[in-house]
Structure formats: C-alpha cells, structure tokens
C-alpha cells in the first residue's frame, strides 16, 4: 500500500486544491501566488549588469586588484559571454495558442488546396493514361496488322523482282541453288528489318506508358503524403492541452493525518466495496 506524503495545496487555492474555472479573479490570484514570472532584459542592460557583477565578485574575492586588471577581467568575461550566447543559444519562436491554432488552420487549408490540386492532376493523368493506352492498343494492333499485310505485299514484290532477275540469267544447276539461297536471305533480311522497325515503335509506346505510370505513382505518393499531413495537422488542431494536475504522482493518505488509522480503514472499505462492484460489472 502506498502512502506517499501528500503535496500541500497551492497557496491561494482552497484546501482541497481546487479553484473555480469560472472565477477569473480567483484564478488570477492563484496565478499571482503560484505562477512563475518571466523577466525581460535588454542585451545592453544584461551586459552592463554582468560587468558590474564580475567587478563586484573580483573585488570581493581578491585583494588589491588594479583597476586595469579588473577592466580586463570584466571585458574578457563579457566577450566570452557574448560569444557563448551566440554559439550556444537557440532561436525559438513563441506563439500564443490562438495564433498557433490560426497558423495550423492556415497550413491545413494550404495543404487541403494542394491535395485538391494533386487529386485533380491525378484524375487528369489517369484519364489521359487510359485514353493513351486504349489508343496505343489500337495503334499496336493496326501496326501489327499493317505489317502483316504490307509485309506480305512487299515480300511478294521482292520475290517477283528476284525471280525476274534470276529468270533472265542462264539457267544452270548452280544458279538454281544460288537463287534459292538469295531469295531466302533477302526475304529474311527484309522481315528482320521490318520487325526491328515495329519493335522500335512499340518500345516508344511502352516508354510513353511507363512515363505516365511514373507520373501517376509520384502523384499518388504525394497525395498520400498530403493526407498524412492533413491527419497530423488535424491532430495538432484538436490538441486540448488541458490543465495540468498539481500532482505528479499518486498521493495516498498522509501518515501525519490526525485520523490516519481510521481513514485507512475507510479507504479499504471503499476499495473493497468497489472491487466487488466492479467484479460484478466485469
């Protein structure tokens, strides 16, 4: 059983540590009694105060310090202080809650706008891709078909021309062999070149499609990042910081309480009654 010492109530708060949220005067009083003050001091004033403190400290701790030594010590300290301030300081930006929420709201609106634009762009690209893909499918089919038809015509014409050439020559057994070889080689070469040309065309189409797909995937990624950012901002905006409890740890009954023993028994009785009740609920 933990029986940590109870923390005394705040000055100005009622003995139970409470204060009406609606009572501004009481709250202000409590702030005055318990709040921490923030003192502002200008740079030149700060250095002047520090110089005076250094002089005072040196005079107090060392006997017979010459004025020039004192000045040098003060000057060295101030220079060092200035240097450390610049090197060690961190720039921070403070905003009142209202301003902060306003900024978050503005960022959220900006991101919402970006999301809308990204969505529109994505829709446009997706539509374009679908159209282009359909077009390309047709083009591809047409190309293959054209090649088949045109190829057959060209092949026929080439074969006829070669036939004519070989027919005009003196027909020997050797020529017949050459004729067969030339015909086959010529037709094969033409078909290969035609196929290369078709492949090149198709590769260009594929590359175009791949480009569209890359753009779409980038846009989708950007859209999901935007969504995540919106969720994060929504979370920030909804943060209700609440009011901090005066207790950091569980308290428990103070051993110094006048009725500590009987109160312990009462706490035990309340606990047991609740344990049995919650068992029933479970």
């Amino acid at each position, binding site marked *: *059983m*933990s*029986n*940590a010492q*109870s923390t005394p109530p*705040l000055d100005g*708060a*009622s003995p*139970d*540590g*409470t*204060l*009406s*949220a*609606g009572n501004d005067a009481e*709250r202000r009083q*409590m702030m005055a009694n318990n709040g921490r003050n923030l003192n502002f001091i200008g740079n030149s004033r700060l250095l002047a105060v520090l110089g005076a403190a250094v002089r005072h400290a040196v005079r107090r701790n*060392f006997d017979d*310090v010459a004025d020039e*030594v004192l000045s040098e*010590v003060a000057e*060295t300290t101030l*220079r*060092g202080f200035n*240097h*450390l301030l610049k*090197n*060690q300081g961190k720039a921070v930006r403070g905003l009142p809650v209202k301003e902060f929420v306003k900024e978050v709201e503005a960022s959220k609106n900006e991101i919402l706008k970006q999301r809308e634009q990204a969505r529109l762009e994505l829709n446009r690209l997706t539509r374009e891709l679908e159209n282009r893909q359909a077009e390309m499918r047709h083009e591809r089919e047409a190309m293959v078909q054209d090649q088949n038809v045109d190829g057959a015509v060209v092949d026929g014409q080439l074969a006829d021309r070669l036939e004519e050439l070989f027919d005009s020559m003196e027909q020997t057994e050797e020529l017949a062999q050459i004729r067969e070889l030339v015909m086959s080689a010529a037709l094969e070469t033409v078909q290969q070149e035609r196929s290369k040309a078709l492949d090149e065309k198709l590769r260009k189409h594929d590359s175009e499609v791949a480009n569209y797909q890359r753009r779409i995937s980038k846009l989708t990624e950007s859209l999901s990042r935007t969504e995540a950012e919106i969720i994060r901002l929504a979370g920030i905006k909804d*943060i*209700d*910081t*609440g*009011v*901090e*409890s*005066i*207790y*950091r*740890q*569980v*308290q*428990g*009954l103070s051993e110094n*309480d*006048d*009725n500590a023993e*009987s*109160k312990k*028994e*009462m*706490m035990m*009785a*309340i*606990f047991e009654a*609740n*344990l049995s*009740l*919650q068992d*029933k*609920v479970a």
Partner: protein
Amino acid sequence: MSNTKKVDTKKEADAELDHVVETEEASQSAGTIMQSNDDSKDHGVLYLGIDLGTSRTSVSSSNGVRETVASYVGYPKDVVSRKLLKKDVLFGDEAAEKRLSLDFYRPLADGVIDCNEDDMANAKGNLKAARDLIGEIIRRAQPRKDELIYAVIGVPAQASIHSKEAIIKAAKETVDSVMLCSEPFSVAYGLDMLDDVLVIDIGAGTTDLCRMHGTMPEDSDQITVTYAGDYVDNQLMERIKEAHPEAQFSVNMIKAIKEKFSNVAEDMPPVIVQLPVKGKPTDFDITNIMRDACNSIVAPLVDGLGELVSSFDPEFQERLKNRVLLAGGGSQIRGLDIAVEKYMQEHLGGGKVIKTEEAMYGGSNGALKIAHDMPGDFWEQLK
C-alpha cells in the same frame, strides 16, 4: 589573480571557452538525461471528485478546475433540429432552454439512473444520457491527455446496484480508474467530520441522512428519503395552485422561484412574484406559501434523524445530536438550519446544526479528498 590564466588572443579565448562548455556538458550529460526523464510529463495524476446529482453534477479536480452543470441532457429530435442546434448533444441549462427541440433526459431524476426494464427505450435513453453527462463533466475538468485520471464519484447512499454499474461503465470510458462512494459520506469526509456526525445531504431527488461514527457507514447508518428539492417544488406548485388557481406556471418557473426566494424564517422578507394570468403578468404574494412549502421537509428529516439517533449507542446520542451537518443544494434554503434545530429541540430534546459553506461543491470536494487519500495500489487494482 595568480591562478587566472591569461589568454593572449580573442580567438584563443573563444576556443578555450567552447572547450570548457563542451567538457562541462559532457560531464553533466548523464545527469541531464536523468533530469529530462524525470521532467517528462507522462506520469501526472489528475484526481477528480464528482458529485453526480439529480439537479446538478459537479466536479472538483486536482488541476484547480471546478465546474458544475445542471443534470440535463438533450439530443436533437430530428435532422432539422440537429442542423439548427449544430450539436449532437446538449447539456445543462442549454439543454433545458432548448428542450422543445430535444429528446430531453434528466438521467438521475429520482437520485438514481432510471433503468426500469419495463420501459426499455426510456431506460436505454437514460443510460446513454448518464454516460454522456459523466463524459461531459470530466471533459469540463479539462484533463490533460498525458495524465492518469482517477475519479471518485459520489452517488446517493442507497443507489441501486444497477445504477452503480451503469455509472462505473460510463465513467470507465473516460477515466483510468474509478470508485463510487456514498454522497453523504464524501461530504463528511471532505470536511473531516468523521466522528459522531449526522449528515443531512439534501439533493433535488433525494435527501440522504447518514450517521458517521469514525468508521465507514453501513446500510443501517444511512437513510434515503424523497423529501428533497423536487418535493418542495411540488408542495409549492400545489399550494400556489390552491391559493391562486388563476395563476399560470410551469415546474421550471416554480423551481426558479424557489431557488431565488426559498426561506423558512418567521421574519422572512415578503416574496412577491410575477405569474401570468390569462397572458398578463400579475403580482402574487407567496411569502407564507414559500415558508410552508420549504418547511414541509423539516419534520420528515428530523424524524429520520430521530431514527438514526435512537438506534445509536445511548451514551453517544447526545454528541450525535449536537453535530448535525446540513449539506447539499437544499441546505441553501434560508433559515433551514435554525428550523431543524428548533424542531429537534421540540421532538428530540435538543440539537445543533452546522451548515456547509459550499453547498454546490461539498460533495465533489469530499470525493476529491477521498481520491487523493486512496492508496495507489487500490487504484491500480481497479483499472
């Protein structure tokens, strides 16, 4: 000055300073981390003391916030009213004000959550309203999301087990650990009046009478009666109706009049109120009616006290009678303490009545104190 090292150039001096700072940071780094962990705000504890009352629900919390809300909950009747009200649920006076557009609930109407299984729809509505009301009062205590919330809820002394279960279920949705305790006990605990005290906690729906004798009060130490705020309202309505049948009024108008003028003193100032008669505001003197209506609870309450006194150890009866604590919203009736004392003198041979200074927050302050004093491992076991 002999141990002062002279540095010749500005550059060297700066370098030396940086080195000194780095060394110090390195030597203190472990300590800094420890301190940083210690400062992290992940183990704050917020205690809540809640008085779940028929008329008002109040919270006192260990962050200094104290809030109260009328125990009314309303849900827009239809899409049109939801659009108009721009809210899914309304609480307190706002709900009462717009009750015509709402499914209106007073979830603790008789001091307990009405869970009558004969009327399932109403029982469900009441349970939901009670749950939402508890959530709302906790929200109003402005808890931080990174703190543990431990709540003690004061409920009428003889609240049914069903009601208690419903309250626990409702609270568990919002807090880390919750306990219930009897309302009059929490009032007495808050004032450190634990020994030989008779508590009269006058609420709207019920009045709890509780005998405190240094230990946890048992069932035999507590009496719950319905002679409370609503009873006075009804008395007032009936008496006005009888004396001035031409006057027009509603129960809410009567409640407001009572809250403003309630008094039982013989020499109370005249109570002149305006009530409509055929649409025309008309003045009525209801001084005697007000006194009689408010006085109507004195006799039954003292009778209840008599029961608790007479069943107590005769040796300590006198002490008990001389420490009667008047608490709750009903204790704000002016002169009630004196009227009870007078009636006790006549019927119990004497008595002394003390009135709590804070009628509105007496129960929640006490519940907060109980929450504070409850050992940590008890809270843990009830999570």
